[in-house]
């Protein structure tokens, strides 16, 4: 149980950067919380009412106000600036893709479209599979995320990736996984009575295994 008291394993190229920010914020907030709580408890005990006790008349301290306003503002704005490049890298630009897919969400499945032997999406030889998302390890995976009906959200906790799929929009998403294995792809946005249980599986395979699986799939068509 105790191993579950922290973030789960990270498997993508950008998960360490997200975990770094999470850990940084965790320590900042933990220290602030501890200081505030200790001060509060000390004051609560020390200044509890006793016979003959009288409170000291203090209306405030402008210097302290300026101090804690500035300190908080500096820390928070620094955090925002620090987060900005990670965010831009994941959601705005990202590296060029190695493999390409189309992922279409619908109540209550993920449709994964593979480009087919010609390597191009949107042609007649495309292959669409429900819920099975096979990708090669250590390759930049790029996909166009769409939805057929309501809003869904593509979520792979170990990649630290979440992106809503919005009907009427094509959203470009990328990730690169550094470890082979199988992971669940739950839907993270309420999408109707079948929302709970809407999930696919991400199969991260070695290049050889991936090509073999792809070949079998294409030959079945």
């Amino acid at each position, binding site marked *: *149980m105790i191993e579950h*008291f*922290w*973030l*789960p394993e990270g498997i993508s190229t950008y998960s360490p950067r997200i975990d770094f920010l*999470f850990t940084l*914020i*965790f320590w*900042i*907030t933990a220290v602030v*919380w501890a200081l*505030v*709580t200790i001060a*509060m408890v000390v*004051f*609560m005990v020390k*200044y*509890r*009412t006793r016979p003959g*006790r*009288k*409170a000291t*008349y*203090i*209306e*405030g301290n402008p210097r*302290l*106000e300026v101090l804690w*306003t500035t300190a908080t*503002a500096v820390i*928070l*704005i620094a955090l*925002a600036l620090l*987060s*900005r490049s990670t*965010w*831009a890298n*994941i*959601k*705005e630009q990202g590296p060029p893709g190695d493999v390409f897919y189309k992922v279409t969400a619908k109540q209550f499945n993920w449709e994964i479209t593979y480009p087919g032997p010609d390597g191009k999406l949107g042609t007649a030889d495309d292959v669409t599979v429900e819920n099975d998302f096979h990708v090669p390890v250590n390759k930049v995976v790029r996909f166009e995320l769409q939805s057929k009906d*309501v809003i869904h*959200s593509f979520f792979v*906790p170990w990649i*630290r990736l979440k*992106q*809503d*799929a*919005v009907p*009427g*929009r094509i959203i470009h998403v990328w990730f690169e996984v550094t470890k082979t294995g199988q992971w*669940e792809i*739950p839907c*993270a946005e*309420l*999408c*109707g*009575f079948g*929302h*709970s*249980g809407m999930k696919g599986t991400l199969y991260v395979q070695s290049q050889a295994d991936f090509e073999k699986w792809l070949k079998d799939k294409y030959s079945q068509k």
Partner: protein
Amino acid sequence: MSSTPAAAIHVGHAEHHELGFIRTYIFSTDHKMIARQFLFLALFMMSIGGLMAMLMRWELAWPETAVPFMHWVPEPYMYDGAIPPNTYNSMFTMHATIMIFFVVMPILVGCYGNFLIPLMIGARDMAFPVLNMLSFWVGAVAGVIMLSSFFVSGGPAAAGWTSYAPLSAVPVYTGVDWGQNLWCISLIVLGVSSLMGSINYITTTINMRTKGMTFFRLPLVVWSLFITAILLLLALPVLTTALALLLFDRLAGTHFFLPAGGGEPLLWQHLFWFFGHPEVYIMILPGMGIASELIATFSRKPIFGYRAMAYAMASIAFLSWVVWGHHMFQSGMNPALGSGFMITTMIIGVPSAIKTFNWLGTIYKGDIHYTTAMMNGLAFVAMFVIGGLSGIFMACTPVDMFIHDTYFIVAHIHYVLFGGSLFAIFGAIVYWFPKMFGRMMNETLGKIHFWITFIAFNCTFFPMHILGMNGHMRRIYNPLQYDFLKPIQPINVFISISAFVLGAAQFILLANIIWSLAKGKKAEDNPWHANTLEWTTHTPVGHGNWDGPLPVVYHGPYEYSSPLTTDDYLPQNVEVTGKAAVAH
């Protein structure tokens, strides 16, 4: 400053003709009666919202098993006590809707806004008493409409309290038909009620302050309610607009939010959160005001940095209009916009921090009296700190990518709304009970309620952070459907058991209220030795609020332990000769 003409008109009310039962208790225009009506309506709704939460917690701990004592609920709502997915979706939708719109807002704004503003600023009633009465009754009608949606075919709304389109816009997507329509209609009606209330509060605060009651002599709770009323006035029409568009999409065949007809699903989210984020502060600002009253009174000390506290609330209110996009970081909105909203969201943390430090400054070197009200006030601060700090995780866009739509968010919202607003409400109920009902509440029961609630609250909501860190999605009805959530299921069981204790503890509050109403110790006029004007009139407060002329104010509301007097308090209407008038 003061408004002598308005006050003069109302003086006549003091020696008033007797009103009949209906005009006194039902269609009353007396702000104090309307406040009580809001309180009882909200407590009733709280029991329904709370029951929903209990049912959800059963489902999450022991998924798809029969809930005890619930076999009588007919199909298709429940199957021999077991909750089907759509009922579960309706439950969290209605739990949030009821708690936000029919519990926290009516108590903080409807009840305490009504009760406190005229009494604390030295006015005989609200500026528009009939509008005030209408505000309550329109709100009650909205409540009836919302509850009636439980009984229509298809069940109540099931698209979440955020009702994201297109899920909410097309009946077939949820299987809910009139339930969702009634949800929209109820909230539109409630918006009318809120508008009437907010106009009243703003007008009253600006125009009807008694002689000497300058803006910077207002108690902070009045400041908070005044700012909240401005937010309500500006935010509610946006929700009303969005709801009207949604209703058109559902009933009139329009496509505002439906891409098939050229509509835009994200438009709903922008409108909803443009209302929704100020709404969050509508629910916490009055709590901050209440906590300030409780903490200053029971520390027997002036509030630390009174002006900083007022300015902080004003800046929170202003900034609340430019942070709505932080609910939409993963929505498909342009990610560059996300960076902008991250900065504004981080900045709104600053005034919240200012308030926390000032509360700490207030208890520093105080003479702290641990009444039930004070304990709830301090709990507000302690829990608000946790809720505020956990918000930083979400403000950081890359981290939000992971924790968005997980239980981390559920933990955060409950630390702010339950740990914050509701503890403030518990404190307010105890603190103003004597002035409202003429009797003291039982302190022993109050403290038992406080401790069980405080411990069970933390056992319920703190572990939700851990669920969220494991990626546990919100709004799923059976965690065991996911392999990666199976190992952490014991945490769900622990949370549910804590939640049942938390729910059960509220019967102590209920018992205390009922017992104290009937048998509580008769209250003195000023049992807490507080400074603000509501304590300068008789208990129970008569029609017109003060028997003689209105009180005149000579100094700020927090002159506790002032060197100018030997007492440890100095009511606002007591003139101290000498330096007093100059100093304050």
